């Protein structure tokens, strides 16, 4: 018997999911997160899940972990004291940044810059210079940089970044400075821009590498500690893997070296979990939305894969690291509604009541009206529902808060509440459009999947706005990330930058590069004990018109190129360009990157067995509660999700409650339980998609 364990650390709860590799049986557990040292929560959780399931911890062979340690270090500005080495003349590369000031005309009047993650007082310049081709123009002055590194050591820096001009073309000087740093300040982790992100654009490369340094001591000490504790409590050979932002798994060592790749580890886990449940329900094109306290994350899944992008954003920090293309909009349960005096418009967010004091309804001293309060006023979040099992909802406080907005707008209470929810939905809708319509996808061809604590509350409404059906609410939508962690496939990729016009390329050369990349990536998986015959390999090419900034990624294979030539890529690019932008050009195409991706097989997990004696739907009813929808009062039936079985059809108006989430089904809609336990919300009378 062997088991795999998925662990997701969220802001409030740490969720765990244990899967029996042989039988597919699953066990879940939820324990409070321990923000000061999240490994404590993880270890508590492991103890709890083994105790409640009766499983011997030594049978757990692999632990897959999604972590927000890196993200939190940035959001709370509590990272390492970073020293930075730049090329002479570029000390202020982060200070000047891209000279960009947000806002429209006059935006500069109110703009204040955030402090730099590597402050100017800890930035030094190396006397050296490379050309754009990577040739040495001015050799590195080693004595000079050694003296400056000694100053940084005296200043007490905790991590060092070296980012030199044109280092994307050659790391020769960065590597030498790293050697000197190792002598001058042994033990201080050094991040080199030529290793972390060897891409053109000095500001972005420097910022990315500095972010890596900023989070590195915190992440590596956390992971080292966690790995040691896990090895002590579980089997010695237990493998700890960390979910990267791009949805792949990283070993502990690689995660510690480039933690900048973990910034979206948490959201990537949620998307992976959504893929797990949606794919088993038969849906391979899905738009996901994860509604949390302060924001909503959305992503697009096609053919059971999440779209990726080359940039990761956390708060105000943007770095060049691949991540699941999760877009975030500042609308969540805690978003505050207000009415500006002058325009009398209703605004929701981006300010949030956060976890403290939280929405008024939580009774923790919050007085500002939030989206959650509006949901309480509307009855979507019934007052007798306990959040996360023990938090009480105060309807009176929610009403008092929302009344302020109602008064400012001069409308009745429930109308104001519905307005707040509609505006919040509209923000989420905007984010979903951004990843679908605006990328040339028709949302009507997609299913929607809502998760996170508040996603199922807004799911039906977003289905209506997007006209995307069914709306899928997976089982345990609040612990979906742990499912994602546990079911993620090992994945690796190898890529090569070419940046060459097609007229300078020949078919044979491109094919042989692809084949080389295939060998490289395949060997990497073999080293992780995944034999070549079990790997799935796919290939991609990034193409653009010479001179453009965009890249459109085309799927390709060595075989099709061999047969049909490079023209295949050009015409596929032209077609997509035409679809996205309504024009194509008679310009030289440029092949920017080639990539081979290898994936391990999906873990073999058997389906949950539903109890053979199907219960009656009526047995799941546990009350009723008034709701307000489209300007009218309705009486919704309350259902206990634990008691719903495949085949059940819950007619709206209804509210389906479970430990960590609440699903609303509006009048005229229904929710069917599918074979894997998903709730599929659809308009009554609509044919299913399958």
């Amino acid at each position, binding site marked *: 018997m062997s088991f795999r364990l998925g662990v997701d650390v969220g802001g409030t709860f740490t969720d765990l999911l244990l899967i029996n590799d042989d039988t597919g049986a699953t066990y879940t557990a939820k324990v409070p997160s321990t923000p000061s040292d999240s490994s404590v929560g993880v270890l508590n959780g492991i103890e709890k899940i083994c105790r409640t399931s009766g499983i011997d911890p030594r049978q757990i062979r692999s632990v897959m972990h999604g972590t927000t340690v890196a993200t939190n270090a940035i959001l709370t500005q509590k990272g390492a004291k970073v020293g930075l080495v730049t090329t002479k003349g570029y000390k202020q590369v982060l200070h000047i940044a891209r000279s960009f*000031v947000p806002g429209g005309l006059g935006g500069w009047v109110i703009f204040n810059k955030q402090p730099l993650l590597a402050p100017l007082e800890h930035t030094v310049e190396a006397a050296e210079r490379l050309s*754009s081709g990577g040739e040495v123009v001015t050799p590195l002055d080693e004595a000079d940089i050694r003296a400056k590194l000694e100053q940084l050591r005296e200043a007490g820096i905790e991590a060092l970044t070296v980012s030199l001009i044109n280092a994307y073309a050659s790391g020769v000087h960065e590597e030498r400075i790293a050697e000197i740093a190792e002598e001058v300040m042994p033990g201080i982790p050094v991040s080199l821009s030529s290793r972390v992100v060897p891409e053109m654009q000095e500001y972005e490369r420097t910022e990315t590498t500095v972010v890596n340094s900023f989070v590195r001591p915190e992440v590596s000490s956390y992971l080292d500690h966690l790995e040691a504790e896990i090895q002590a409590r579980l089997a010695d050979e237990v493998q700890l893997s960390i979910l990267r932002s791009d949805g792949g798994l990283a070993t502990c060592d690689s995660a510690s070296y480039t933690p900048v790749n973990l910034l979206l580890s948490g959201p990537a886990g949620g998307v992976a979990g959504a893929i797990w449940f949606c794919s088993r329900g038969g849906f391979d094109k899905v738009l996901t939305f994860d509604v949390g306290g302060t924001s909503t994350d959305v992503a697009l899944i096609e053919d059971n894969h999440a779209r990726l992008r080359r940039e990761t954003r956390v708060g105000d920090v943007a770095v060049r690291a691949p991540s699941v293309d999760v877009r975030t909009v500042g609308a969540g349960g805690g978003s505050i509604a207000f009415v500006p005096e*002058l325009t009398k418009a209703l605004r929701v967010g981006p300010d949030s009541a956060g976890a403290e004091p939280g929405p008024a309804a939580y009774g923790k001293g919050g007085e500002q009206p939030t989206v959650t309060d509006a949901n309480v006023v509307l009855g979507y979040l019934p007052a007798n529902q306990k959040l996360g099992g023990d938090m009480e909802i105060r309807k009176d406080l929610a009403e008092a808060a929302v009344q302020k907005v109602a008064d400012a707008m001069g409308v009745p209470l429930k109308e104001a509440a519905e307005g707040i929810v509609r505006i919040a939905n509209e923000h989420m809708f905007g984010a979903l459009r951004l990843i679908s319509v605006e990328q040339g996808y028709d949302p009507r061809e997609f299913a929607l999947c809502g998760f996170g604590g508040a996603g199922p509350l807004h799911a039906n409404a977003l289905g209506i706005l997007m006209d995307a059906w069914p709306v899928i609410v997976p089982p345990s939508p609040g612990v979906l990330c742990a499912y994602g962690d546990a079911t993620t496939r090992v994945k690796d990729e190898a890529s090569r930058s070419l940046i060459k016009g097609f007229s300078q390329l020949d078919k044979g050369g491109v094919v042989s590069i692809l084949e080389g990349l295939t060998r490289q990536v395949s060997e990497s998986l073999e080293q992780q004990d995944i034999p070549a015959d079990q790997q799935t390999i796919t290939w991609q090419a990034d193409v653009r018109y010479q001179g453009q900034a965009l890249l459109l990624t085309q799927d390709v294979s060595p075989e099709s190129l061999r047969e049909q030539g490079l023209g295949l890529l050009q015409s596929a690019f032209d077609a997509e360009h035409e679809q996205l932008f309504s024009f194509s*050009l008679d310009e030289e195409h440029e092949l920017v990157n080639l990539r081979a991706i290898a994936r391990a097989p999906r873990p073999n997990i058997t389906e949950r067995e539903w109890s053979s004696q199907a219960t009656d739907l009526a047995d799941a009813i546990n009350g009723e509660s008034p709701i307000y929808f489209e300007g009218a009062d309705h009486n919704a039936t309350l259902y206990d999700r634990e008691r719903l079985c495949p085949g059940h059809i819950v007619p709206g108006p209804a509210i389906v409650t479970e430990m960590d989430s609440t699903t609303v089904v509006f009048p005229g809609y229904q929710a069917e339980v599918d074979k894997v336990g998903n709730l599929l919300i659809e308009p009554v009378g609509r044919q299913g998609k399958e």
Partner: protein
Amino acid sequence: MPANIIQPNSTPLQKVDVDTVTLDIIENAMANARNEMDAVLFRTAMSPGIREQGDAFPMIANHEGKMVVGQFGSFITGFMQSYNGEIEDGDIFLTNDPYMCDGAVSHLPDWLVLVPVFKDGRLINWAAMFGHMSDVGGKVPGSLPTDAQTIFEEGIRIPPVKIYKKGELNHDVLELILHNVRMPRWNRSDFNAIVASCRTAGRRCVELAGRFGDDVFSSALGMMLERNYIAMREIIRNVVPEDKRSFEDYICDDGAGIGPYTIRCTMWREGDKAIFDFEGTDPQAPSSVNFYLNEEMFKMFFGAFTINLFDPSILFNDGFYDLVEVRIPQGSILKPNFPAALSCRTHLLGRIFDVMGGLLGQGTPDAMSAAGFSDSPHFMYSGYDDKGEWFQLFQIGFGGIPGRPVGDGPDGHSLWPGFTNVPNEFVEAYFPLRIETYETIIDSGGAGKHRGGNGIRVGYRLLADGEISIHDDRWLTYPWGVNGGDPGMRSRKELVKANGERRVLPSKCDHIKVETGDLVVFDTWGGGGWGNPLERDPAAVATDVVKGLISVEGARRYGVVLDAKGAIDQSATEALRTEMAGSRDTDALFSRGGTIEQIKARCEAETGLPAPATPVWNTAGVH
């Protein structure tokens, strides 16, 4: 004769009630549509000016041509009145001639694309965008000849033409235009990108009208205009006094030996109407620094400048235009007579914002910012590289944001929305040069309780023979400080030849021959300071010294005495501050570094350049 709009569906759009929430939703969706226009543009454009720097401005208007979302105000009403022909579904218009569109675009490099948006046979919206083309022909690479005397020297002039007629591209016209520019593939791609961007906006409008109904949609756009009207009426009552108030600022010279040119504006309120009168502004220049200022655009500047303080999330638009009247004397540098040259209008366009700041600020000094980086200086470098291929670099410079009520001005940033610098590695990879220095200039920000931001020094090491052009200003007059703050440091340009010989270059010049190995040192100017520098926390001054943004010597401007390591000498600081307080004029609202006469008298000694001659009406430049 006004344009004839062909609408097979003759049912007029009805005004209906729209609830607040629907209105807010449509407002939000229109903001998204506008953002999407930017996204499409930046992804598909090719010239570094547009794709990296963001020098392009989108707009969406309602069916009457009033701007609902955008930045520079609508010009469609004016266009519809002057365009002498039919407007049909599928038509797309292109123009770049300021004299033909009442200054909607203000020089030939800005190409303006107008797309009428039809749904079910009715005109429901307009989408438009103008973008700065890297070259439109004319006498110098980059098409910004300072010494041009008429617009005919500045590139190809495109009157409003149907570049698409009922969906069909007019190839011949496009090819004719592209035949006249130096980098046709950039123009072609940028033009396509702008059209694609406008079409995207058009699709979004049609979808929204479909979702909410044409009448609800168009009524909501009307209400958004009304929202701005009501908001701006309040603002005008608050910030514009009934008694007249004047302010003047300058551009230093015209590149032809005349200057400074005075921009004078007087503001007052009559009832709810704000009046801005530019009487007292100097005559048009004989060179290309004239700015053909569209009155509506000025209204927009005024609104944008003030509304941020009240509801920054409002979707700012044209709705308040009737509340503002703008008077500009014909023949002045802000309304020159055809065919005056216009290409280098960027200095005046920027300076207008300083004029506005000084004008409005007098009533509410605490809310006023100092003079900022009110320009976008240009550096152009062209020639043939070692492979014999033509290259043409166009760079925009950045500088110091002024000291403001909310805090210090950021160093080396942009006053223009959406502008970003071009990564130096990109420039080095595609052009024969190396950028050896890219840093802000120590002590260049004006001292103040909130200091001005530093200007930027860019050191260009040129690796091919060729020519350079420079367009900048504030080399003579100072970026002023306010409320006791000092002016910022002025701009400066220097050519250091490979043999070590140094030469100060004028702020505005073309056709400067350069050789491989030459170094161009391009210094922009700092922002003015806000508030008395003696009130600045000495610890903040010391921090800036440690960061290398203020020197130990420069700290004395704040009355702060530091040792070489940046530690504060408390007693020396107190003594110096007491001494300085005695001699400071604390009553002056503006600190300009002297009168024009004084500044001119010390010009040559301080700048290495001769002082320009004073402009005179009736003789200079009027045709």
